[in-house]
């Protein structure tokens, strides 16, 4: 057998941790010591609930961003799903059919986003900006701008359920994480998420239907939004047409904080989970300190920039060292 003796051996390299890890730890430690009421059992349980919905949006968002895409419509679609679910419950339907309706709406938007990005090669930013408008408008039309209530007790009961000591919303969110993890690392779909972001031509040349997998990435996002509506609606036992508008900002922020890149298909789910935890803790601590929501957005923006600057400085130092 020929031996390529002159080729240097290739080792698996340990990838550096994203800067969010130490910053997140510092933030949690700071909140524990400095913010009154942060460490209370009630607040910690509350944190878990707050994190649940964000985690559900951020999981598929990680895959979308890894594929060099973006989904600005996530928050608006989630709101619409919640409205559809609530209208269905208020109309006397059971929780299963309400969930099915919500998932159908989410899936439809996901498929539409994916089809336009994949088949028409339109920029994801513009496509999802358009569907954001459609979803937001549809919510307002369906509700005439009012909250939908009178849903009965089914969904509130489900939301308050404890399964093996875990609150139901957290359980659904963790199941979403596990599912996304399995999809990303143990299925062809997941492998092709890396390929679509990293080198789509390679996937096409490998004979795989890249276009279909590209659509599936966005469809997965829509499907998860449909399920997440269960938590959003259950939390208040009502739906409001604009309740989740802007939540895509936190989801995208969590993905970026977690070290997922907009280029070359580089990403990791664990980073996104850390990003979700950091943003939730930050918002919660600022709430407890009585700092208003607009300033919270400022602080999240500043945090993103801080983490990105640190990561890029570390990267350029690594390149120099190599």
């Amino acid at each position, binding site marked *: 057998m020929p031996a*390529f003796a002159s080729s240097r051996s290739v080792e698996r390299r340990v990838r550096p941790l994203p800067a969010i890890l130490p910053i997140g730890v510092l933030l949690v430690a700071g909140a524990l010591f400095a913010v009154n009421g942060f460490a209370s059992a009630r607040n910690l349980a509350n944190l878990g609930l707050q994190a649940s919905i964000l985690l559900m949006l951020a999981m598929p968002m990680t895959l979308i961003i890894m594929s060099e895409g973006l989904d600005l419509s996530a928050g608006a679609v989630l709101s619409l799903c919640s409205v559809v679910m609530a209208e269905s419950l208020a109309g006397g339907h059971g929780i299963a059919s309400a969930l099915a309706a919500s998932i159908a709406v989410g899936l439809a938007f996901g498929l539409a986003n994916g089809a336009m990005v994949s088949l028409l090669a339109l920029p994801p930013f513009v496509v999802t900006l358009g569907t954001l408008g459609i979803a937001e408008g549809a919510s307002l039309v369906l509700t005439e701008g009012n909250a939908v209530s009178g849903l009965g007790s089914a969904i509130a009961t489900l939301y308050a359920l404890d399964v093996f000591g875990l609150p139901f919303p957290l359980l659904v969110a963790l199941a979403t994480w596990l599912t996304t993890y399995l999809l990303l690392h143990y*299925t062809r779909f997941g492998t092709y998420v890396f390929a679509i972001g*990293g080198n789509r031509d390679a996937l096409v040349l*490998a004979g*795989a239907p890249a276009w279909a997998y590209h659509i599936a990435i966005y469809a997965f996002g829509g499907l998860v939004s449909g399920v997440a509506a269960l938590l959003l609606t259950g939390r208040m036992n009502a739906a409001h047409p604009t309740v989740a508008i802007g939540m895509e900002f936190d989801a995208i922020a969590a993905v970026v904080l977690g070290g997922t890149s907009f280029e*070359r298909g*580089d990403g990791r789910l664990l980073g996104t989970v850390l990003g979700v935890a950091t943003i939730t803790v930050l918002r919660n601590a600022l709430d407890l300190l009585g700092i208003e929501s607009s300033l919270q957005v400022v602080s999240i923006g500043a945090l993103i920039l801080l983490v990105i600057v640190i990561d890029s400085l570390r990267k350029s130092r690594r390149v120099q060292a190599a």
Partner: protein
Amino acid sequence: MARDDHDGDGSGQPAAPAPLLSLRNVSKTFPGVRALDDVSLDIRAGEVHMLLGENGAGKSTLIKVLYGAYRADAGTILFEGKAVDITRPADARRLGIAVIFQEFSLVPFLDLAQNIFLGREPRRPLTRLIDHARMHREARGVLDSLGLDYDTRALAADLGVAQQQMVEIAKALSQRARILVMDEPTAALSERESNALFALIRQLRAAGVAIVYISHRMQEVFALGDRVTVLRDGRRVATLSAGEATPDELIGMMVGRAVGAVYKRRQYGAAGRIVLDVRGLTTATGVRDVDLNVREGEIVGLSGLVGAGRTEVARAVFGADAIVAGEVRISGASVEGGPERIAARGVALIPENRKLEGLALKRSVQDNLLVASLWKLFPHGWYRAGSAHRHARALIERLRVTPPAPRRLARALSGGNQQKIVIGKWLAAGCRLFLFDEPTRGIDVGAKSEIFALIEDLVERGAAVLLISSELTEIVHVCDRAYVMRAGRIGGELGRAELSEANILRLAMHET
């Protein structure tokens, strides 16, 4: 067209085996280019079939048609005598055709095993989940068979160029292909790695695999090839067994491209002082120890095959890429710094992609013409429309831009006229040294001679010109002398008397 299987091949071989794959009268046209013109070709099991041709002869198109990346406009493909439709890469894969592409097809953030098995990931029977253990085991086996001790869990992003090339080869091998197509596989490899690859190719040939091998190195053609097919202008010139041809004969078949009306120099003037003097230039982009100079009144060609490093030399001279070693002197003074510093010394780079780098398409002809010379025209920073208009009109007349409308958008002009404006921009700025990178690419024949007439005007007025062109005839007919690059180095210099297509190819392909 003859329907027998031995069409055009060496008749010296009795009882040649039936072809594994045959192309019959295959054509492929792109807007303005006949990339493949009625090509017929047989590929037999157990042979190494070399494909030879100049830049743009149709080799890459041929591969893409074979692999289903392009669809032929006309003609048929026979596999084991049966007509097959290869419309997608998946079709080619099913037939057992694997391609090692020159532009790499690895996914950066997948590991080596995932890259090798991309599109064919082994899955567990029941759950349909990817069987990582099996995938890594099999990837290990393929890498071992190549003698590579790479960790299958390493990410492709962490590989060097030669290592990526080896993984590409492993990827193709793992498909147990019956036809293996290699597009210049040794371009990124060291000599030892190349030799090991050759040994592997001989093993595969012995095992009955058909190998189609594109090369620009004459040595490889004779060391490895059983048969050679020469392409020129999208047509098959000949197919012969490697023993039948001499290197000179092969080169003779490759040259003589029909380029339409060939430009005739009005006169060859006497060269003046040295304007550009490059010594020992080495860059991170692959230029190695390049020496060259250009004098006043001279058009000096920089030739070589695509990827030999010509554009990289021009970019380094212009300060667009960092210089690792060596120096660039302009009019005797050593210069350093970025493009602005170099441009201030009267150097102009007219890049290959004029639409991206040389023109503001949505601005007027006048704006484009004057953009580089505004400070010269209006030293106090005060723009005077009337004076600008007069200057633009004078330039348009001199450049013979049609239509002569200064306010027309640059976008609305033909390719040839756009190129004139890019040249005019630097003319207005009073440049002394012009670096042209493929100035006639995508320009029709008539406009080509106008561009060359402009370039000749420049040198008649004492400017110095370095002309990069992939068209050998252009170099031969337009230049006073030429350097030929090969793998980042200057392979040789040809004076006007020695300047011929065959001599350029000989240097470019290392045929001494």
